[in-house]
């Protein structure tokens, strides 16, 4: 009874994502094939916006997969394969943009904004604490009462002097 849902869950858990790599494209050498797979996941299929050539069925993706494997077999390093493609399609072909002056904003912008936010929070709480340390300001009612009391005191002092003089 419980076995069936369990089996389904297990099957779902173990299911590999659908891949576009066709058997005849694959290399016999498993190490090289794994390198080709890892590299393919980093390369954009240039006609399908945001898919890697590893998961796209487009013809150009097929062509690029075969090309990546040919170059790896020919002894290219991973970087050499990427450089070859960047020379033809620009940085656009890389799914992970390279870090260089024109992409500094992209890579470091979020951290800069985080820093500015943290600074703003810090300043805000410091100011709050400084305000809290001072005695609370008087309300309008209290101000009025204070003025009245001061007036009375002044009047009383004057009257007191008189009284003392008289008595």
């Amino acid at each position, binding site marked *: 009874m419980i076995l069936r849902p369990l089996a389904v869950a297990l099957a779902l858990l173990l299911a590999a994502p659908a891949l576009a790599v066709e058997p005849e494209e694959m290399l016999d050498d498993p190490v090289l094939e794994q390198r080709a797979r890892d590299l393919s996941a980093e390369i954009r299929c*240039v006609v399908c*916006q945001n898919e890697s050539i590893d998961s796209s069925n487009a013809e*150009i993706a097929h*062509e*690029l997969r075969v*090309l990546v494997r040919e170059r790896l077999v020919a002894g290219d390093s991973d970087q050499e394969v990427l450089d070859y493609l960047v020379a*033809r399609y*620009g940085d*656009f072909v890389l799914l992970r943009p390279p870090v260089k002056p024109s992409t500094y904003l992209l890579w470091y912008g979020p951290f800069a904004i985080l820093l500015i936010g943290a600074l703003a929070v810090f300043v805000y709480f410091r100011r709050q604490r400084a305000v809290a340390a001072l005695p609370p300001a008087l309300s309008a009612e209290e101000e009025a009462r204070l003025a009245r009391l001061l007036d009375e005191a002044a009047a009383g002092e004057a009257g007191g002097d008189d009284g003392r003089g008289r008595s």
Partner: protein
Amino acid sequence: MIRRLLFLLPVLVFAVIAGYFLWGLAPERDPSDVPTAMLDKPTPAFDLAAVPGLDVPGLATADLAGGEVVMVNFFASWCVPCRAEHAFLSALAEETGVPLYGINHRDEPEDAVAWLAELGNPYQRIGADPGRAAVEWGVTGVPETFIIDGSGRIRWHHRGPLVPEIIERDVKPLLAALRP
């Protein structure tokens, strides 16, 4: 003073976001446009055989550095925009006298022959490309057109059909500048 400037901050944020939206939603912007990396580079190494059944020679890198400005056009019989640009391309080649070379991309030879028989052949050379030459040229699909100067350097690259607007605005002035 600083406190008063602080009130301008939301206005500034709004201006930045609005500017970004304006840029992103502008009708001239095509988000599927792939930037070209081949400009001002020498033509890539390639050597394509002629299309069987056509009496037009094939195309190789050596044909492109003969001291003459040439146009290279990727096309295929199965490509609808290629059919759309064919008349404009033919007229351009005839009017300017600039040699037009074709690269027949992923096509059946008999289909290409029939296509050219129907529409006319403006190409002086045609190489049959099973797919790799397109990658060498940084081509993402058909049609795409290049202008190569006399020293074999790529001076212009256009993805998509050559419509009269682009021919008048970009192609003719460049050809005139390259061929004094």
